[in-house]
């Protein structure tokens, strides 16, 4: 075997190098050297991000098990930047007394899930895909249960691992039926042989259900609010952005590339699921009182919007999906950044506690308001443009009614996003959150997010760049 082929996977290799270096330092470093551990981790990860942000030529490794297309560089860079922001936001939380001994594990586990997501994205064979999805899910479960003396965290961990393993069991069973019908597990070979026979359709249905569990679309979303509430807030942010973004991208590639023959069938399936996801999640979000549960339902409905890019199945759908993930990442991470800061300093997670936040913490509340505007899709923030592109992608393929339902739901979502803004700016509280002075890494992360929310939409070259390489499959 030619081992030099591995050198071509430079994204995976540098990430692996970062993981190994951090692990060695975590185990062997002296007390004195350990103080610089977090800074070192951030620097190494930033170098890794910068080294891998230029797209190259398409290639394949290991006989087509690993496929690289230029669009993968973009989605991986988006994930890298998102992980970097999460690491910045988790900086202070990891310095608390109970967590200081577990810092190394946090970085090791987070970066391992990222490694699994890389494999998922670049897979060209279902074995690689399955290994990737499990490498991403298992460390994720341990991260969700990270506060092991906290009942909520342990419960969330149990709920996450059980539903995630159940989902991958369903996927696996579906895959076995697809294998029985086609006799191959390579994406390209399956696409050539597949004829949309009945057994293939059953296999596809099981497989798709397993994936929808990961993206937490209605009616497979029931684990989401519980896990989001129980997990540590930085992990929730990671789960809602990075994990979801990867799964959505992978769903697009696999549906179009492998199950392209069944496009008529899966469009009907997605149609129903999108309508359900957006509507049900929006209605449930209205009645939430805990900010993390609220964000969980908000992220379910956002996932429904992202699936509009998948249902179109075109190059425009692909590029607007990647663009939506980019914008959604910055907006959601800005909200989670504020929530993390307030939870760390004041230990408050109820929406009612945010009453009058503007009068004590004007900067935080402005960041939060901008991010919520962007999530709701108000121009001129980038959320408007991402929604515009994804709607036009579905509209061009003739889903007029679906786009109309999504638009009507945007109005509903406006209600609950703006309710939070109203509580922060116009209501006075008797017991407001005190003035918070945050640490520098959180500040940097919030500045990055805010700048991105304002400028990613206005700088049109970003979308053009993505759409040049749009159909990377």
């Amino acid at each position, binding site marked *: 075997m030619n081992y030099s082929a591995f050198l071509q996977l430079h994204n995976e290799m540098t990430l692996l190098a970062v993981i190994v270096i951090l692990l060695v330092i975590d185990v062997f470093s002296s007390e004195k050297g350990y103080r610089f551990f977090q800074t070192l981790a951030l620097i190494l990860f930033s170098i890794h991000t910068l080294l891998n942000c230029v797209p190259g030529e398409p290639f394949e490794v290991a006989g087509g098990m690993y496929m690289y297309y230029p669009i993968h560089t973009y989605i991986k860079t988006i994930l890298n930047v998102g992980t970097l922001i999460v690491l910045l936001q988790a900086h202070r939380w990891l310095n608390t007394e109970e967590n200081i001994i577990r810092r190394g594990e946090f970085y090791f586990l987070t970066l391992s899930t990222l490694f699994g997501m890389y494999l998922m994205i670049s897979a060209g064979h*279902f*074995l690689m895909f*399955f*290994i990737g999805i*499990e490498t991403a899910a*298992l460390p994720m*479960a*341990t991260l969700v*249960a990270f506060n*092991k*003396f906290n*009942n*909520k965290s*342990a*419960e*969330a*961990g*149990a*709920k996450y*691992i*059980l539903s995630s*393993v*159940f989902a*991958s*069991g*369903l996927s*696996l*069973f579906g*895959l*076995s*039926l697809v*294998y*029985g019908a086609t*006799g*191959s*597990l390579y994406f390209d070979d399956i696409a050539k042989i597949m004829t949309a026979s009945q057994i293939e359709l059953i296999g596809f249905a099981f497989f798709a259900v397993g994936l929808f569990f990961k993206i937490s679309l209605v009616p497979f979303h029931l684990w989401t*609010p*519980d896990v989001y*509430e*129980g997990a540590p807030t930085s992990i929730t942010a990671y789960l809602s952005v990075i994990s979801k973004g990867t799964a959505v991208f992978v769903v697009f590639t696999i549906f179009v590339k492998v199950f392209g023959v069944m496009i008529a069938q899966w469009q009907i399936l997605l149609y129903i699921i999108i309508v359900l996801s957006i509507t049900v999640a929006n209605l449930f979000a209205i*009645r*939430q*009182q*805990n900010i993390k*549960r609220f964000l969980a339902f908000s992220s379910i409905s956002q996932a429904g919007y992202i699936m509009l890019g998948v249902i179109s199945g075109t190059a425009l759908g692909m590029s607007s999906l990647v663009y939506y993930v980019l914008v959604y990442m910055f907006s959601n991470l800005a909200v989670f950044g504020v929530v993390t800061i307030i939870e760390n300093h004041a230990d408050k997670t109820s929406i*009612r506690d945010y009453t009058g936040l503007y009068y004590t913490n004007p900067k935080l509340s402005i960041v939060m308001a901008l991010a919520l505007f962007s999530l709701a899709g108000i121009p001129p923030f980038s959320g408007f443009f991402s929604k515009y592109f994804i709607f036009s992608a579905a509209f061009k393929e003739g889903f007029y009614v679906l786009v109309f339902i999504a638009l009507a739901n945007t109005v509903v979502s406006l209600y609950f996003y703006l309710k939070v803004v109203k509580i922060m700016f116009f209501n006075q509280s008797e017991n407001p959150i005190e003035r918070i002075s945050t640490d520098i890494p959180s500040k940097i992360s919030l500045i990055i997010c805010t700048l991105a929310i304002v400028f990613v939409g206005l700088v049109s070259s970003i979308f053009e760049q993505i759409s040049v390489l749009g159909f990377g499959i």
Partner: protein
Amino acid sequence: MGSILENFTSGIIPMEAYIFVSFIMFFSGIYGFLSRKSLLMVLISIELILNSADINFAVFNRYLYPEHFEGFFFAMFTIAISACETAVAIAIVINIYRNLNNVEVDSLDELKEPEASDEK
């Protein structure tokens, strides 16, 4: 049905027999996942689901596509991965046992939908 019985008596096990077993395992796994009261039984049900998929892979490979070994390799990897899954899940279940002193599914009720609110 007649031909299946004939094959049994002649000593050749038909593919349908294996598929029959794997489907029973799969659906009893789903039933167990939804109905068992203990977290350990839920885990065992999940193992049933994963193993039924493994049987499918091996059987399809052996009977339908004996020229390659893709299904066998996939089953091997899946067995290893499901062992990892069980290990992580057991670790989390043990942690729950330490916190709550039991592993009943019903005791995991701290995180749930809030009651209908009357605030405006």
